[in-house]
């Protein structure tokens, strides 16, 4: 069916495009007349939350985004960070939450496709991916279906495209019952003198359409992603796009070949609101107008209207401005890879976005205002409520509690998930999922490697969004540090509920404040990101989930640390703040899994201590003193020790500390690491008076013995840890 361009504009039509009455008035003021139907579609695409960040922009501006290594911060397809030797790492994380809930396989697959395109659009070959996934409670009737579809979709796309998945997260909570989260991260490598941007320059130059053909899939997708769900959700299925990783792989090779030829002036991938967003962005950034002739757009369906073409979210498409003298060369490259190549317009000097279809001008809009004058809201927000104070926590049998935690949905092994992802392709994976961070060697360099980690604890954020935001950054920074990497920069993927509710807006504001403070303190700028709001179903919002994806640099990977114990008869050292081993049980995994409780404040993050402890541990690794390293997070000391034992098959005996074993072994106090050192090197642990560097036990044997608890064989730990996921998925 064709949607005509002369459909009259009514209040209902405006509302169904997600535009509020005052936003429509703004359109009228801007163009001085009633918009055409196609123009209304274009405005709704550019001004929705997904593209315009209208609720979050005011706060995103407060984040630190620059630093000595930052080549490109937020605002482009991905962030770019210098890693020396003329090379840069290009990375971003982006959500595909709403589509994945509606159609998990294709939603997740196209999420991968989108983030990979963001990276290679900038001239970088993707070298690593991660996925942060959050699902409803395991017993919810939809959860298994979503897990199975999302994991298969991520794998189906990434494996075929050929990027190794080196890390990620999977968590379950009832608050995601109606909205799962799929946050996809990708990183690529580029030469610093060959980074490509979306800013067009030069008048009268060809605007070229590349890649797959345009269909009706995804029409209105970005608008959907900015709306709450209700019971009519099944009706939204046609707005989810279908991914084609084969075409994307060809597009990658063709784009990199074309970029190397010197023909590309500007490039922008067609993501949300496809042709509209990409054309407007290229023109607006370059202070140029764009004229598009839709009759030249390659289509795969008949009788498509201008409205449909402008809002289509068909995947695997790119828009470029090319040097006219190299048009033929460019076309030959794309034909070789079996891809469409069509000149669909040109750059102009009138700062208008003009769209023609079948001899008719269907849109004529001011291009700068479309992008730059999108509404921006200072939405009202309230201080989040303080969490209920932590009640008394009874003592536990440490061994039983540890086994229970290791076999719980959130802390059990994710092997079932990551074995469905190709973790080894490209031959550069030094650490695959299961450790603190994924590590990939920098191809063509003898010793350099990059570390990647994705982190957030949404329960902490729910209890205290500010501390939770800080903690997400600190934990990511810590995970990178625990491999010996110097954390360079991060990307943030902020997943929240409906920002029109002041308490949700309060969470967003507080989380961003916490993230900003932590990033400043840890020299860890945010160089790219994405905001996903309206993650609500029938008025129930998700847990606030600001996912942080970080990248670190390892100068010499032969000195990199892993989490597994390296040998028997080595000394286990706990590095943390002065005082108790651990005491903080508010919002802990122990409280939740063993007692079914979720009260208390999350553990506070002392950023000065984090920096100090991290720098100390990194130096131990780089000096070759630490033979293994692991950061402490969910489940505290006991779970961290168990993970080190399971990764190596070597056991350990650890002393006890004080009478409160529950707190000592399961407290989730921040800023802590475990390292192992040989007996000979123990003396090299130079003291830092501000840190507690405590010998707490020794490695060896085939069991883990914690304090006064019974010893548990490493095999029993593994059985508990590896069992949950396959059993849950029925395999």
């Amino acid at each position, binding site marked *: 069916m064709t949607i005509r361009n002369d459909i009259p504009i009514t209040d209902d039509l405006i509302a169904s495009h997600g535009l509020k009455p005052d936003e429509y008035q703004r359109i009228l003021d801007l163009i001085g007349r009633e918009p055409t139907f196609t123009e209304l579609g274009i405005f709704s695409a550019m001004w929705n939350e997904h593209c315009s960040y209208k609720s979050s922009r005011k706060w995103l501006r407060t984040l630190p985004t620059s630093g000595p290594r930052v080549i490109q911060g937020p605002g482009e397809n991905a962030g770019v960070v210098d890693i020396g030797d003329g090379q840069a790492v290009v990375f971003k994380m982006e959500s595909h939450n709403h589509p994945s809930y509606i159609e998990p396989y294709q939603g997740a697959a196209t999420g991968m496709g989108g983030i990979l395109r963001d990276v290679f659009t900038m001239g970088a070959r993707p070298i690593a991916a991660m996925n942060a996934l959050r699902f409803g409670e395991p017993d919810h009737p939809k959860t298994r279906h979503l897990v199975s579809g999302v994991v298969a979709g991520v794998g189906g796309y990434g494996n075929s495209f050929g990027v190794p998945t080196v890390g990620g997260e999977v968590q379950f909570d009832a608050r995601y019952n109606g909205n799962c989260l799929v946050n996809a991260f990708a990183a690529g490598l580029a030469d610093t003198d060959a980074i490509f941007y979306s800013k067009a320059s030069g008048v009268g130059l060809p605007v070229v359409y590349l890649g797959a053909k345009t269909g009706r899939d995804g029409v209105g997708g970005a608008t959907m992603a900015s709306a709450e769900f209700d019971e009519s959700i099944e009706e939204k299925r046609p707005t989810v796009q279908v991914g084609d990783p084969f075409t994307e792989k060809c597009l990658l090779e063709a784009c990199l070949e074309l970029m190397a030829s010197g023909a590309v002036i500007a490039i922008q991938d067609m993501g949300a609101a496809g042709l509209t967003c990409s054309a407007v962005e290229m023109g607006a950034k370059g202070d140029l107008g764009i004229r598009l002739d839709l009759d030249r757009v390659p289509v795969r369906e008949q009788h498509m209207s201008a409205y449909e073409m402008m809002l289509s979210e068909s995947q695997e498409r790119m828009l470029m401005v090319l040097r006219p003298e190299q048009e033929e060369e460019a076309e030959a490259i794309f034909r070789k890879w079996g891809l469409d190549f069509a000149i669909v317009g040109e750059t102009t000097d009138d700062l208008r976005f003009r769209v023609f279809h079948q001899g008719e001008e269907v849109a004529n809009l001011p291009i700068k205002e479309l992008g730059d004058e999108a509404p921006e809201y200072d939405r009202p927000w309230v201080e989040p409520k303080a969490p209920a104070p932590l009640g008394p926590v009874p003592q536990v049998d440490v061994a039983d509690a540890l086994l229970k935690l290791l076999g719980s949905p959130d802390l059990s092994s994710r092997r079932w998930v990551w074995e469905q992802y190709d973790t080894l392709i490209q*031959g550069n994976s030094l650490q695959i999922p299961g450790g603190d961070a994924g590590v990939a060697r920098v191809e063509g360099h003898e010793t350099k490697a990059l570390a990647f980690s994705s982190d957030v604890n949404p329960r902490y954020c729910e209890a205290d969004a500010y501390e939770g935001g800080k903690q997400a950054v600190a934990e990511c920074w810590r995970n990178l540090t625990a491999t010996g990497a110097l954390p360079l920069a991060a990307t943030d993927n902020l997943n929240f509920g409906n920002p029109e509710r002041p308490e949700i807006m309060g969470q967003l504001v507080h989380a961003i404040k916490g993230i900003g403070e932590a990033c400043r303190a840890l020299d860890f700028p945010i160089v790219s990101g994405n905001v996903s709001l309206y993650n609500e179903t029938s008025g129930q919002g998700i847990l606030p989930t600001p996912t942080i994806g970080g990248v670190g640099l390892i100068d010499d990977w032969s000195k990199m640390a892993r989490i597994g114990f390296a040998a028997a008869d080595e000394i286990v050292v706990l590095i943390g703040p002065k005082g108790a081993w651990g005491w903080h049980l508010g919002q802990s995994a122990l409280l939740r899994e063993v007692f079914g409780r979720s009260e208390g404040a999350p553990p506070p993050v002392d950023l000065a201590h984090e920096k100090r402890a991290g720098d100390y541990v990194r130096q131990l690794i780089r000096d070759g003193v630490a033979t293994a390293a692991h950061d402490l997070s969910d489940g505290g000391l006991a779970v961290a020790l168990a993970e080190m034992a399971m990764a190596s098959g070597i056991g350990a005996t650890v002393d006890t500390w004080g009478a409160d074993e529950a707190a000592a072994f399961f407290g989730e106090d921040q800023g802590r690491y475990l390292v192992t050192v040989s007996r000979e090197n123990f003396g090299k642990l130079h003291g830092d008076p501000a840190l507690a560097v405590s010998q707490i036990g020794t490695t060896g044997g085939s069991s883990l013995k914690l304090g006064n608890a019974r010893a548990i064989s490493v095999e029993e730990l593994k059985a508990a840890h590896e069992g949950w996921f396959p059993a849950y998925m029925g395999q």
Partner: protein
Amino acid sequence: MKSAVVLLPGLNRDRDMIAALTKIGGQAPATVWQTDTEIPDVDLIVIPGGFSYGDYLRCGAIAARMPVMRAVAEKAAKGVMVMGVCNGFQILLEAGLLPGALMRNASLNFVCREVKLEVANANTAFTRGYTPGQIIRCPVAHHDGNFFADAETLARIEGESQVVFRYADGTNPNGSLNDIAGVISDGGNVLGLMPHPENLIEAAHGGTDGRALFEGLLGKAA
């Protein structure tokens, strides 16, 4: 020794394979494109892994019908060594250069993990770097590696020692009949295998068990 790597749209372990051949053989292989009808004068042709043409039809079925595969078949008939890894194995089967078929993994899931392989026949041009019955480590990464052949074919290839690699120690990741991971042609010059020896050739890979295959092939064995 000269080698060539076949490039097809959608293959994605081509870079891994080229790196392995270059690092171990000391010289970069030639490359041939899907539409090439002639292959340069080489001693070894390799079809790497990936998802040629998206595997949108049966895995390897489209690739097997591309012009370059006629050229590969002609070379194979003349005794040139041909090795297909993963998607390359699937393509050789679809091209009729090897016996059997590869079905979807028994788990129905893609699987990427390290397995153990037994070198079931070390008396081939491809495996002479190993000792008979040697157990090696090797990664797999595939969705359709479940080897199948009818009873008669299976009896024949087993009888003729055409099974070159077998999953060992209970690590069969895909349900393959007789734990078959790799088979060789009756002429002994065409090998197909699902695992990826090219991803286990240097310290950075955490092991070098895949190296002997390339060293044997490229005449670099110590």
